């Protein structure tokens, strides 16, 4: 979706605020928001693409004026509601008002290291041949889906070259929408800066973007 999260190429955000020796967390509540989000992720009540979509569907004003862990907190509340794990009344009350819904797993402290070390690989078995090979010239689609997508706006309708074939990966556009993983070939595509930004681009710039097969056509 063309939401506030799709920031590549936008202007006017000012200088980057760099903090020397920055801590992981700037307040206790950030630690808790971080850990709550990961622990609830471990219940497998949604997937990583659903959770990204929950964050990017915040109102653009809300998204851009919230800190990172505020975005995570608001996204988590949305995921909990959508999954039917809590009610709006319970969120407001900060207390359970009814029975819990079943979840697949509740991580214990002693499980954390194993779960993190395993992660959640996104590659899947190959069931059909890749449509493109390294060196193929491709054009990204001109598209503006209202749902989740990982083709950034700045890289739509642009010519690039297949740099690498990563394998078959879960397709976020489908997975975020609850329509299944729909695994498809994932490529790394090279774009010249001038082909993306025009003749004013830094001539030494190339962009390397990971893109799924449905985003691409032969050029």
């Amino acid at each position, binding site marked *: 979706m063309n939401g506030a999260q799709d920031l590549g190429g936008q202007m006017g955000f000012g200088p980057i605020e760099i903090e020397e020796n920055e801590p992981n967390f700037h307040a206790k509540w950030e630690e808790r928001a971080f850990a*709550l989000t990961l622990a609830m992720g*471990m219940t497998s009540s949604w997937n990583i693409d659903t959770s990204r979509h929950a964050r990017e569907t915040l109102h653009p004003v809300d998204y851009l004026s919230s800190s990172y862990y505020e975005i995570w907190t608001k996204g988590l509340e949305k995921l909990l509601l959508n999954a039917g794990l809590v009610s709006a009344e319970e969120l407001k009350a900060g207390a359970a008002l009814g029975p819990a819904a079943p979840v697949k797993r*509740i991580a214990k402290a002693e499980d954390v290291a194993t779960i993190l070390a395993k*992660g959640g690989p996104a590659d899947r078995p190959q069931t059909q041949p890749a449509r493109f090979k390294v060196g193929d010239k491709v054009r990204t689609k001109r598209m503006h889906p209202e749902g989740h997508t990982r083709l950034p706006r700045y890289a739509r309708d642009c010519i690039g070259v297949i740099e690498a074939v990563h394998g078959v990966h879960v397709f976020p556009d489908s997975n975020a929408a609850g329509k299944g993983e729909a695994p498809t070939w994932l490529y790394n595509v090279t774009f010249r800066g001038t082909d993306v930004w025009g003749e004013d681009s830094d001539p030494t710039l190339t*962009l390397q973007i990971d893109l799924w097969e449905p985003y691409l056509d032969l050029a």
Partner: protein
Amino acid sequence: MSHDHDHDHSELSEIELRVRALETLLTDKGYIDPPALDELIETYETRIGPKNGARVVARSWIDPEYRQRLMSDATAAIAEFGFTGRQGEHMVAVENTPDTHNMVVCTLCSCYPWTVLGLPPVWYKSAPYRSRTVRDPRGVLAEFGVTLPKETQIKVWDSTAEVRYLVVPMRPAGTDGWSEDKLAELVVRDSMIGTALALDPAKLETAA
């Protein structure tokens, strides 16, 4: 009741209250085990951070066979150190050379190689970095105090998928014969994102 002190512990901000309410609710419901939250925080505060990535880079500088493995299958080469899993399931290492400089960004969210770098700094997740790096990498580098020759090719990796990128900075001159551990001290976090170079060895010796 006094409102003079912004940090008075009796006055919690809206977000503090919101997160506290959420934790109470999720604990009440039995969806989370509170000690697991402490363990998650502890893990990223003490065990998973940029020192992991620095060890990988330092090894690649002194061991050509390891470097080969890292460049051909970074996930497996990084797993040799036991660094595996969440936000590092599919790793790719990209090497800086005298001709090419690599930088990593996630314009759509904040994808970052947690297994080797830990949690991302605020600036990496911020709108200024995410918006500008893909269009004006040299302007971004200037803010980090890095100026590259004007003919250096710049590759910006936008992390749009579950593939995570680790920049391997160039080994600084004047480090011949250095041990892996000592070399690792030169490999600062930002040099593995591409917004810095590895430390100048002279500076490390001054600091020590």
